[in-house]
Each structure stands twice: as structure tokens, then as C-alpha cells.
């Protein structure tokens, strides 16, 4: 072998060089892809694809982490922004509710100019299921006295003051079993007594007793205070007739009246300290 290369080596080198030069000339002159380049490319192609895939994956991972960090930052910022907006919304909601109550109160004062009203907040609901009472933050200091009646901002009857301290008072609502209020059916003018009943209290209803003509009532008839006797002002809305029933004795008939107010939901009320008893 050594002898072959020493004898014909120069000749072989010259032949290879000639072939390569010829192939280079052909590659330079030809317009298509040369065979050797094509073959090398074919062999390298899978490796390139794999390398490209790995690089792409790495780039994706990097981009993913960059995105996550960016999104987390953005998310934190948005959360803070949402919290600020929610806080503003809460404040606005409270302000709107207060605004509405005060507007209604103003309307109430305009509607009943003869009434001397004292605004009061409900500080405690009834601590029993057997009666329906509310505790207010106004008392004798503000002129609140036992026997005065209490309405909501729409002029619906809530109840009557039954206990009054220096800076607090207690309202027995119209649903309580102790409550008995002179009432009139607005449409018919029928005079009756609206009384609280234990079995109706839970549904926010009361009984309209001593009706002269229960058959004349229709569902939805509005019941208001009669004002007779001068203890309570007349015309305050008590509720609407829901149905007519016969009592357990099977003799007397009474109307079930759905009260206009829901004592457990009241936040603010008005005590009518004085009114024109003649109306």
C-alpha cells in the first residue's frame, strides 16, 4: 500500500484535484442545486430540524416565563385597580342609598307639613321570635315619647313607641301581637282594627278585624290608619289586603293584610312627634 502511494500518489492527488476543480466549475456554472450540496443538506436536515426545535422550545420557555412575570405584574396591578373601584362603588352605593332616603324624607316632610318628624336609625332588631320590636337611637332627649307613631321614609306605618329612654326608644311594630291600630280600607271606607297575630307575624302580615262587610274587600285593597281617636295620624299606609279568612271559632271573619313595611329590613325611620289631630 505504501509502495502504491509512493509510486502513484502524485498521480492520484492530481486526479482528485482535477475532479474537484471540474465539480466546482460545474457547480458554479449550473443553475440548480449541486448533487453534493443537496446530499449534504439532506443528511443535515434532520439535525437542523432537531436543533431548531430545541432552540425554539427554549425560546418559547423563556418567552413563557417572561410572559408569566409580565402577566403576574399586570394581574396584581389590575387587582389593585379592581379593589379601588369596588371601594369607590361601595362608597357610591352607600351615598346613593342615603341620598334616596333623605330625598324620600324630604318628600315626606313636604307631603305632611303638619308633622313634626324626628329621624332615627334602627340600632337593634327584635331579640325574640315572639314579638316584633325595634330599638331606635332617639329618645326623650330628642322629644320622642311613648305613644308616638313611627313611619318609614315613604310614610308607611312601622309601629308605635312603647318605651322611651334618654337617647333610645323602642318601637312595637304593627306586626306585634300587642299591636292594635284603628284602620280604614281606603277604597270602601270600611273602618276596622288592624291587629298583630303570632301566626301571621312570620309572613309580615296582620289581621284586619271587626270588618262590617268583609265580602266587599278585594285582594290588593289598601289599608291605612283611620286617625280616629286622634292617637295616630290618619292616612298612613298599613298594607294591602291579601285574603279573607274565618277565625278558629268559625264565626268571625278577618282580612289578612300584608304589611307595607318589613321591620327586619328597616334601617332608618321617622318618629312623628306631633301632628294635626283634626285631619
Amino acid at each position, binding site marked *: 500500500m505504501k509502495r502504491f502511494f509512493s509510486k502513484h500518489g502524485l498521480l492520484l492527488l492530481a486526479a482528485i484535484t482535477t475532479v474537484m476543480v471540474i465539480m466546482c466549475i460545474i457547480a458554479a456554472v449550473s443553475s440548480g442545486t449541486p448533487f453534493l450540496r443537496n446530499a449534504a443538506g439532506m443528511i443535515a436536515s434532520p439535525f437542523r430540524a432537531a436543533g431548531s426545535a430545541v432552540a425554539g422550545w427554549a425560546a418559547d420557555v423563556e418567552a413563557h416565563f417572561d410572559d408569566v412575570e409580565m402577566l403576574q405584574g399586570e394581574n396584581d396591578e389590575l387587582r389593585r385597580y379592581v379593589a379601588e373601584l369596588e371601594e369607590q362603588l361601595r362608597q357610591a352605593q352607600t351615598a346613593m342609598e342615603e341620598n334616596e332616603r333623605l330625598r324620600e324624607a324630604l318628600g315626606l316632610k313636604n307631603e305632611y307639613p303638619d308633622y313634626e318628624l324626628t329621624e332615627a336609625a334602627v340600632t337593634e332588631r*327584635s*331579640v*325574640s*321570635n*315572639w*314579638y316584633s320590636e325595634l330599638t331606635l337611637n332617639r329618645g326623650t332627649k330628642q322629644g320622642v315619647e311613648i305613644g308616638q307613631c313611627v313611619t318609614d321614609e315613604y310614610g308607611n306605618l312601622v309601629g308605635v313607641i312603647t318605651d322611651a329612654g334618654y337617647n333610645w326608644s323602642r318601637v312595637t311594630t304593627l306586626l306585634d301581637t*300587642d299591636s292594635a291600630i284603628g284602620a280604614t280600607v281606603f277604597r270602601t271606607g270600611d273602618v276596622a282594627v288592624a291587629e298583630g297575630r303570632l301566626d301571621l307575624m*312570620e309572613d309580615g302580615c296582620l289581621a284586619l278585624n271587626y270588618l262590617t262587610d268583609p265580602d266587599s274587600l278585594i285582594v290588593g285593597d289598601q289599608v291605612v290608619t283611620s286617625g280616629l281617636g286622634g292617637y295616630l295620624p290618619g292616612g298612613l299606609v298599613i298594607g294591602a289586603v291579601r285574603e279573607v279568612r274565618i277565625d278558629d271559632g268559625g264565626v268571625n271573619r278577618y282580612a289578612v293584610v300584608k304589611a307595607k313595611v318589613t321591620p327586619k329590613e328597616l334601617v332608618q325611620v321617622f318618629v312623628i312627634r306631633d301632628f294635626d289631630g283634626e285631619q
Partner: protein
Amino acid sequence: MTRRLIAIRWSFFTAATLLVLFFQSQLLSRITIWGVSPVIIVCMAAIAATLEPPRHAAVFALLLGAVADTLFPAPVACFYVLVCTVVAGLSVLVARHLVVPGIRCALVCCFGALLLGSAVCAVVMLHRGAPLSAVLSLGLRETIVSLPFALVLIYPAFAHIHTITTPR
């Protein structure tokens, strides 16, 4: 047990009682389950009586009743004084002779206390002409709804106070 320890114990009991009264007034009265709100005032007298000596329990029940009668409206005068004192007496008997003091004893005594409270209200309502079915329904629902609240809110606090202020 030293006087100092007794004073500390009852200071803790007083604080816990005032907290429960505040909860009753501001939180529980706003909750409505099965048409009724939980009322757990009388259960404090019952649970304290199962944990403490009879004399202490009786004084606690009297004071609790007086405070509750002052703060909250009731169907009859001295309703809470009457009910809390009777409940404390009965709870002492139960804890001494029937059920070993603990959560089961508290359960039995609270159930009895709530039933007694409802029974007194029921008698007053029946006297005022309320239908028997409505009275029974309301009384039972109030007892059933109030019982878990009493055991969850009062018993752990009172039992803990009793444990930490008992000398080993």
C-alpha cells in the same frame, strides 16, 4: 381555689357573657333560619351551671337575667331573671345526678333551657289568644335553631374559661 382565681374566672365569664349578648343583639337577631332567629341568652345560665358550683351559678343566672331584662324586651316582667334562675337550678341537678358535665350535659341543659324559655313565651301568647299550632310550631323551631348556636358560641368559651382558671 383562691379568691383571686375566682375573681379572674368570673371576670372572664363576664366578658364572655357581654360578648355573647352583643352577638345576640347585633348578629343573631339578623339571622333567620326556618323562619326564626336563634336566641341563646338563657343557654348561658344553663352552661355556666353545669360547670360552676351551684351558688356561683345561681348568682350568675340572677345577674344575667337582670341584665337581659334591662337590655331586651320580654313577654312578662322579669322574664329572664325567672327563666335563667330556674334553668340554672335544673342544670345543676342534671350535671350532678344525670349527665356527667361536658358537651352532652351542656346539650341536655341548653335544650331544657330553650324549651323552658319557649314554654313561658308560649303560655303568655296562648293567654293573649294566639293559636296553639302557631305557638307550638314557633317554640319548637326556636329551640331547634338556637341549640347549635348555643353549643358552638357559648360552650367552648365557657369550658375554656373554666379549664384555664382551674388550679391543677
